[in-house]
């Protein structure tokens, strides 16, 4: 079942085409990976889906809705969440506040109720807190709950980044290199979380990752980009046998 449909997307900056006529179907409930050498346009396509870039040509639709020209906050309210490659956390806030912020558009008290903080605002905030605690529990972030994000180690910050995207309560989660710069142990942790996110929470995951071992192991579908063009897609076995993919990664004989 096609869920997110990227059809014929071209993204160009001046004369440079970051993406050229890319077609991609992402199916509900699966883990889909996007791989490719450096500069292939992996992050560009995530940026197009999450609304930070708008395609020069082509359409992106999600569950019947067209989101080609939607802005990031509109897209996040449709149920698409995104974790960034370079940490984009609120460094001056605690882990707890970072996660509470992700619930921003889900809180339905008004300004004056917030000002008085009695009754509704207080009740909604404590329910909100309970929701966030559930995510903290899921992502095993309990020891860092009250620490400032800026003071945490890189690996933990990456985890907070994923946790924050998860707090948005998405149907579709876009993860941009969640394992970059991590050691084997931390990678194993993240892989476990990704699989749990898909299985326990029923979230569709789109993963951009360089570690091919991880990608081959956990992906249901793989799309391969090279120089902004889609050169292969399918199950891990199909992609591994694809001649173009082998050429892009290893080179021609």
């Amino acid at each position, binding site marked *: 079942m096609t869920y997110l449909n990227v059809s014929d997307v071209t993204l160009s900056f001046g004369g440079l085409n970051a993406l050229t006529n890319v077609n991609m179907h992402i199916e509900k409930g699966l883990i889909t990976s996007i791989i490719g050498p450096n500069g292939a346009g992996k992050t560009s396509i995530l940026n197009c889906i*999450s609304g*930070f870039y708008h395609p020069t040509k082509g359409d992106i639709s999600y569950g019947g809705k067209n989101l080609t020209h939607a*802005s*990031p*906050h509109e897209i*996040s*309210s449709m149920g698409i*969440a*995104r974790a*960034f490659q370079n940490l*984009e*956390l*609120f*460094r*001056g*806030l605690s882990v707890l*506040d970072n996660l*509470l*912020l*992700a*619930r*921003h*558009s889900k*809180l339905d*008290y008004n*300004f004056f109720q*917030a*000002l*008085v*903080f009695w009754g509704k*605002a*207080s*009740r909604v*905030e*404590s329910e909100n*807190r*309970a929701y966030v*605690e559930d995510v903290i529990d899921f992502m095993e972030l309990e020891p860092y709950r009250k620490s400032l994000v800026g003071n945490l180690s890189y690996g933990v910050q990456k985890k907070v980044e994923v946790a*924050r995207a998860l707090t*948005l309560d998405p149907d579709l989660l876009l993860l941009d290199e969640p394992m970059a710069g991590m050691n084997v142990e931390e990678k194993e942790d993240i892989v476990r979380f990704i699989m749990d996110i898909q299985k326990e929470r029923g979230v569709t995951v789109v993963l951009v990752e360089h570690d091919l071992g991880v990608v081959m192991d956990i992906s249901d579908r793989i799309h391969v980009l090279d120089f902004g063009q889609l050169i292969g897609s399918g199950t891990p076995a199909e992609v591994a046998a694809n001649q173009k993919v082998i050429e892009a990664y290893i080179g021609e004989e």
Partner: protein
Amino acid sequence: MASNRWLATGNFFTTYQEEQRTFTTRLDQLIFSIFLLTLFIWPLLFELSRTYMLVVDNILIAVVAVLGLNLVTGFAGLISIGHAAFVGVGAYTVASCSRMIGDSHIIITHLWPVMIIAGGLAGAVMGAIVGLPALRLKHLYLAIATLSFQMIFEWTINFMAFFNQGQTIFVGRVMWLTGEVGRSDHYVFWYYVILIVIVMCGFGVRNLFKTRYGRALVAVRDNDRAADAMGMHPGLTKVYAFALSGFLAGVAGALHAYLYRGAGIESFTLHHSISYLAMAIVGGLGTLNGSFWGPAAIQFLDLQVENVAELAGHYMPSNMNLATALRPLTFGLVIVLFLMFEPRGIANWWRIVKSYTKTWPFRY
């Protein structure tokens, strides 16, 4: 339920609602109540001279204004160099009403709480308008946009006959339950009014930061790309920050107009904008209690320097003109020293003192 609510030790939270409380222990609550009570009853016990009472009132008005500035500059990270103009908008709302309907019209004298709120709303509207460039501009460029508002404001007031070309527009004496507030009670009466306003604004802001309306401000300061991905419109959040700050500035301005029984341009110049910024920096940007320390420290310093300058004036030859130079000199020096050695402001000293007394006699 927690077994001990008086001390931090053994004070366990069993629900999230308990953790949201402003005062975590009864002891904190008690100390704060006593402090507040002291603020309310000291004018009944001592009588301060009118000059000093005016200084106290000035500090309190500055607290309201700096609280607003801290929201936009400290929490939302948008530098505003036009804050005095927002204060001016509040003051001139009252003043222009008084010019249109007469300075002792019943609306001015009896409905003054409404006028103060109206001043705040006018400030909020102007704040939202001036905040519009924040949809596109960032950092210093935005600061220049606020500076231009300051210039436009001063120019408008100075050249429009309606605003008396910047000369004072009078505002009448207000009525209270006991009748007209006369000359002798004037400063004490407004002391109480401003104090109540501060308590309300202080708790309001404190509550706001427990909710999404406060967190959104800090989010656009720290990372507006991520704020966008979290489902908030970063531009509109910034406009909202300016409106909120404008509201508090407007309230401060309306209080200023009533306290001085009039409004003139000389209280809302660029110099005052810079001084509000200095108060916010010295107090501690991005902290709630910094908004209280900053105005108190700067006004106190101003008073002391004035005394020193007067003393020095007796011994120095008058052509050196030390007395007039001393004020801006110390003012600038204090800001530079704070920026270099304590960028987190006096609020940080307060934090250190608090954590020290909490753990005493142990070191940590």
